[in-house]
């Protein structure tokens, strides 16, 4: 008898239900326990002790499980995957202990389910319960379980081909299977280069450079006013020599990439400044300049290509005017300033990148 096997199964059933089903085990067990207690109350019991109630709950659960298992196997024997009422009736007969086997079992002639004793008993039971009109329904409301893990744990449920609306690649793949992942997840497909944010970034960069240029220009104007009142051509000559000397010293240290990368934008930014420098003259301004933008000066080599001629001419002019001693002094001065700027460059590589 299949019922005889169940004495120790109750305890063992709890262990295999680890992982996902252990979460629902306690809940379903508690729910079935309260349902069984309600049935006992309907029968006539006022109270019950816990161990017999637990045992009875276990038996009820095992009854359902065995019914399902037998019904499924009967359906599978007949080549079906879904069960019908005859499978359940056969399973009921299988689980019951009928003493009058010969007379009242399912006969082969009629093949009717109602020949089954068990089913008739159940029908009578339902009629009785209906007639009594007691509150037989489950008192508490059960939430819909098992709770889907989609929202709780964030598991991705892969939709099937049918749900997506795709045709599977190949006739051998049925539609109800999960769909294949999108090709961009495992292959390199051409990308749409999104440049949405770049114009804004470019504008910001341009505005910043313009502001710096304006600041330099203002200070230049200030110096011009001072210098023009005191000196004259001397200012212009000093500036050029200093600039050229320091360019040579700086360029050896500064990388090529920075020069080439921002060359064009720097040219645009400093065009007004350089034009002003061409027109006027400044000596100490270049030191300030360099403190703010040491790398920019290194790019003046490219700038020279564009503005070229005027700077060279002034250089020639300078060579004629100055005395040797003065030039050497200026060179030392410029060299010291260049070294200072180089040290600053090394200390603050971030500033370089910002440009």
């Amino acid at each position, binding site marked *: *008898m299949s*019922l005889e096997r*169940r*004495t120790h199964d109750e305890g063992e059933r709890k262990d295999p239900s680890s992982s996902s089903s252990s979460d*629902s085990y306690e809940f*379903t067990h508690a*729910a*079935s326990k309260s*349902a*069984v207690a309600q*049935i*006992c109350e*309907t*029968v*006539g*019991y*006022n*109270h*019950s*002790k816990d161990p*017999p*109630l637990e*045992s*009875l709950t276990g*038996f*009820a659960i095992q*009854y*359902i*499980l*065995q*019914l*399902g*298992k037998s*019904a*499924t196997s009967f359906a599978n024997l007949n080549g079906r*995957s*879904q*069960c*019908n*009422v005859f499978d*359940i009736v056969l399973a*009921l007969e299988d689980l019951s202990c009928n003493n009058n086997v010969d007379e009242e079992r399912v006969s082969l*002639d*009629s*093949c*009717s389910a*109602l020949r089954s004793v*068990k089913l008739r*008993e*159940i*029908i009578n*039971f*339902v009629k009785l319960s*209906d007639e009594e009109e007691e509150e037989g*329904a*489950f008192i508490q409301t*059960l939430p*819909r*379980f*098992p709770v889907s893990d989609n929202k709780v744990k964030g598991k991705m449920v892969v939709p099937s081909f049918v749900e997506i609306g795709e045709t599977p690649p190949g006739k051998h793949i049925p539609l109800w299977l999960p769909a294949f992942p999108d090709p961009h997840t495992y292959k390199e497909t051409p990308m749409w280069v999104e440049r949405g944010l770049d114009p804004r970034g470019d504008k910001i960069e341009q505005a910043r450079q313009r502001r710096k240029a304006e600041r330099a220009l203002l200070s230049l104007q200030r110096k011009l006013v001072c210098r023009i009142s005191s000196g004259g051509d001397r200012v212009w000559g000093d500036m050029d020599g200093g600039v050229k000397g320091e360019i040579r010293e700086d360029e050896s240290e500064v990388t090529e990439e920075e020069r080439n990368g921002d060359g064009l934008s720097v040219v645009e930014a400093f065009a007004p400044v350089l034009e002003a420098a061409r027109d006027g003259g400044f000596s100490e301004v270049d030191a300030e300049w360099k403190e703010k933008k040491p790398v920019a000066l290194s790019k003046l080599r490219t700038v020279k290509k564009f503005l070229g001629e005027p700077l060279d001419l002034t250089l020639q002019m300078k060579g004629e005017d100055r005395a040797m001693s003065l030039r050497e002094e200026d060179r030392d001065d410029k060299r010291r300033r260049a070294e200072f700027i180089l040290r600053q460059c090394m200390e603050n590589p971030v500033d370089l990148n910002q440009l």
Partner: protein
Amino acid sequence: MNQGQQSGEAKHEDDAALTEFLASLMDYTPTIPDDLVEHYLAKSGFQCPDVRLIRLVAVATQKFVADVASDALQHCKARPAPVVKDKKQQKDKRLVLTMEDLSKALREYGVNVKHPEYFADSPSTGMDPATRDE
């Protein structure tokens, strides 16, 4: 031929009764909720979209539990009443489901349930000191 016709008619009647019964199942709500039964049936591989079949299983289980409980109740009522001190006190005022009654009831179904009366520390607890040495 006659037998065949009769059996055919009986079959139709039976089928009609069966469909009527299944329809009546929808009116009657079993004590065990549908969701719970569906969960356990799914666990055992039972696949059916029809609610009536699930209700049939629920009703069958309810009948099984009710049968066992009523048998236990019979055993409980059949037990000799305790000494009645107060004349107002009745015999069956407290109907409690105990393990004794349940095991007696289940024995008829072929299930052996034995509840230990107490739990001991070791197998030799409570034995005579003479036999314990052995």
